[in-house]
């Protein structure tokens, strides 16, 4: 039973294989027959909606009744047991004894996954926060397939709010799986989150290239990106925002593309920050309809709409969004039928087999997404993560198993030896061996590890490379140089790499303020981030306007430069966002060993180091009680070290 419910639930579009989706589509084609056969006679579906919805809920209820089954529902979950403080886990447990399938919408990311883990019957995700909405995606794919015959090779333009729209993220992944091209046209500041782009690149070999707006100006005024399938991509992949001439060429190339569909999204006012609601938003209107090249392009929309589609589109044959909504019922009938059949067969499909990490210690990494179910209601979920990258730079990248948000972990420990280590890519294989044996502990900070009685491991003495006074002097002279090289001080943007880099960026900005008239704008860039990879730090961090890098003089600031890969990633993120006038790099310490052709413009100090050395910059803002200093020490492979400590290990094992 335990495995069955997990297998049968549909939380993400990833829970269904391409073959299963095709199977569901064939069932949907035969919806009339399913209705006549009263396939689900005697079965009960419960709908639990914690967030308002008309379409999704009514189409589910209609689907179930057409299948001959019956529906129980609670009109307002917020006003019911939830108000009395019942957890989603308990609700799922209780209601699953009343029904044969649960359909849940919740405003927390990952809540439906948590409920599926506690329910004894299949659970269907009808939208969880800004995470996923798989049945909407099924309807979208089905509509495209009905209209265009096939999904492979289609070019679909997704426009509008690509950041907050859960339907969009599901849809983009699904289109990728079926080999469709995806062109994105985001409203300003609402681009696809970085983790979606990374997953497209990593899992589906998609390549990213920008397209100039002129080409699509019939529709919108914003610029964004073009994704192409692995068949034709490398041509475009090369020319990521090189310069305007290339931009122009790209738009010519894009002009040769056939656009099969425009997928508009709604302005998600309820998910936007205060004050960000009046940004310009793309719309489709008569201009679009008149364009010769869009004559076979269908217009889709998940509905409800606000004002993205003008009434003219309703009357046009290309506006198929009402049809798309109508397909909601046969598709959901097919999905229910499919799940009931699979339950009757006692499962059968394979479960996703990602390596997941669950902390063996009472404290461990926590999802940073404030809307994640693991944060909102820890008792209903277990903190579980999938390991995304086994060691990029000096951090391990985890993804929350509930909401997919990324988390960077830098401190790892061994449960047996009770030692902790700063994560290092050279230790990746050792750590993955520990993970398999259940010995790996991960911590958000050194403090956490020490609270649990873990001891640090470092070999050899720590040597101070830079004292407090030296650091202050270096920052002040670097700031003076930056100011001297700067053409327009008011266009300057000091961009720190999140962590020590952001603190140093603030200090550089303060130095510049001392030496010049005003304080330049300060921002932060998150290399491994999930959604907001570029953020404003000062003067006003509550300003909802996205950080604008276009034509700016950007000073990228980090504490230590080593292989240069962090800077390379930062440049990619910067150029995906906009084309700055220039990017210069300031680092406190250059320790050599570059692996990419990156060169800092301003360096506090050059330190010769060996590759197994660790250089750490301690700052009083980050390590309270510590003085500003930079230290160097040597690390040893912990596997070797463990062998040297047999007594310790045995004692701990007992």
């Amino acid at each position: 039973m335990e495995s069955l419910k997990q297998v049968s639930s549909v939380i993400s579009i990833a829970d269904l294989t391409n073959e299963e989706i095709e199977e569901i589509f064939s069932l949907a084609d035969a919806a009339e027959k399913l209705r006549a056969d009263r396939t689900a006679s005697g079965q009960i579906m419960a709908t639990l909606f914690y967030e308002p919805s008309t379409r999704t809920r009514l189409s589910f209820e209609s689907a179930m009744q057409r299948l001959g089954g019956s529906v129980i529902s609670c009109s307002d979950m917020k006003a019911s047991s939830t108000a009395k403080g019942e957890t989603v886990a308990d609700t799922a447990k209780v209601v699953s004894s009343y029904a044969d399938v649960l359909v849940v919408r919740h405003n927390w990311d990952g809540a439906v996954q948590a409920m599926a883990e506690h329910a004894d019957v299949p659970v269907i995700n009808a939208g969880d926060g800004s995470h996923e909405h798989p049945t909407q995606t099924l309807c979208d794919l089905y509509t495209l397939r009905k209209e265009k015959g096939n999904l492979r090779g289609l070019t679909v333009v997704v426009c509008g709010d690509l950041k907050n729209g859960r339907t969009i993220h599901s849809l983009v992944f699904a289109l990728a799986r079926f080999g469709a091209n995806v062109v994105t046209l985001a409203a300003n500041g609402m681009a696809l989150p970085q983790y979606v782009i990374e997953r497209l690149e990593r899992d589906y070999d998609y390549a990213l290239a920008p397209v100039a707006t002129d080409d699509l100006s019939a529709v919108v005024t914003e610029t964004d990106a073009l994704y192409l399938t692995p068949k034709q991509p490398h041509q475009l992949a090369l020319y990521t925002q090189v310069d305007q001439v290339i931009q122009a060429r790209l738009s010519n190339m894009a002009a040769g593309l056939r656009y099969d569909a425009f997928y508009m999204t709604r302005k998600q006012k309820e998910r936007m920050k205060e004050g960000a609601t009046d940004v310009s938003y793309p719309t489709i209107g008569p201009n679009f309809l008149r364009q010769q090249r869009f004559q076979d392009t269908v217009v889709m929309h998940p509905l409800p709409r606000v004002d993205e589609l003008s009434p003219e589109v309703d009357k046009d044959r290309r506006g198929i969004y009402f049809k798309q909504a109508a397909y909601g019922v046969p598709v959901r009938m097919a999905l229910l039928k499919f799940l009931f059949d699979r339950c009757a067969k006692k499962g059968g499909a394979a479960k996703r087999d990602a390596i997941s990490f669950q902390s063996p210690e009472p404290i461990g990494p926590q999802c940073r997404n404030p809307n994640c179910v693991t944060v909102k209601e820890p008792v209903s979920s277990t903190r579980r993560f999938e390991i995304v990258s086994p060691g990029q730079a000096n951090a391990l990248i985890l993804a929350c198993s509930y909401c997919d948000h990324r988390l960077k972990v830098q401190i790892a420990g061994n449960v047996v030896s009770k030692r902790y280590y700063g994560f290092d890519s050279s230790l990746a294989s050792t750590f993955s061996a520990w993970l398999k044996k259940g010995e790996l502990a991960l911590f958000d900070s050194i403090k956490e590890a020490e609270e649990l009685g873990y001891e640090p491991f470092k070999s050899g003495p720590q040597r101070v490379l830079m004292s407090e006074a030296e650091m202050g002097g270096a920052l002040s002279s670097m700031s003076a140089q930056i100011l001297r090289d700067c053409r327009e001080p008011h266009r300057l943007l000091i961009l720190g790499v999140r962590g020590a880099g952001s603190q140093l960026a603030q200090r550089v900005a303060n130095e510049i303020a001392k030496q010049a008239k005003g304080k330049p704008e300060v921002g932060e860039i998150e290399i491994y981030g999930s959604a907001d990879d570029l953020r404003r730090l000062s003067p006003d961090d509550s300003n909802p306007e996205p950080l604008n890098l276009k034509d700016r003089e950007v000073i990228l600031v980090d504490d230590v430069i080593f292989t240069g890969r962090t800077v390379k990633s930062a440049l990619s993120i910067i150029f995906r966002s906009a084309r700055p006038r220039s990017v210069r790099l300031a680092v406190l310490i250059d320790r050599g060993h570059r692996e990419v052709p990156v060169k800092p413009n301003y360096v506090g100090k050059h330190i010769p180091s060996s590759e197994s050395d660790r250089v750490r910059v301690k700052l009083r803002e980050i390590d309270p009680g510590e003085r500003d200093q930079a230290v160097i020490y040597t690390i040893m492979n912990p596997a070797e070290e463990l062998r040297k400590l047999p007594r310790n290990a045995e004692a701990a094992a007992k």
Partner: protein
Amino acid sequence: MADEKQIVLEQPELGKTIRRMAHEIIEKCAEPNALVLIGIRSRGVHLARRLARNIEEIDKSTPPVAVIDVSRFRDDRVAAQAGPVVGAFEIDASVDDKTIVLIDDVIYRGRTIRAAMEAVERLGQPKRILVAALIDRGERELPIRADIVGKNIDAVERQRVNVRLAESDGIDQVMIVDWRS
């Protein structure tokens, strides 16, 4: 077009320069078998082939030469005709765990290299990426460096650095041309 021209490099020095660059590539790459040269079209490709020939003579091993098509979109060649792009990447060798040398005739703002660098990383995970340029004219707008440089040239913004190579232009010659509009 009363442009003022000044020749800064020609044969036989140019041949010697390329020879020296080949030596530097070998020196910077510990394992010659794990080397891939990527020429940025079009003159970068001619240079990559020449460097490969030189490396072969010096080291008795021939590194594979791959091609990235960025040159026809370069900002100093505005008049380049539009049209479909064919074979942006011509590469047979794997880049995983290899030392990649991106080769171009002139390095200037750094934007071409940045784009090429990103493109290369999409092909796989190279161990290291180096940049070799026949001419480095400075004035970078990005924190990108050339690891191996044939010749450094100081040229002001209105000047153009023209690299002509026998393979495409019938003569080996680098000159600085003054724009006079």
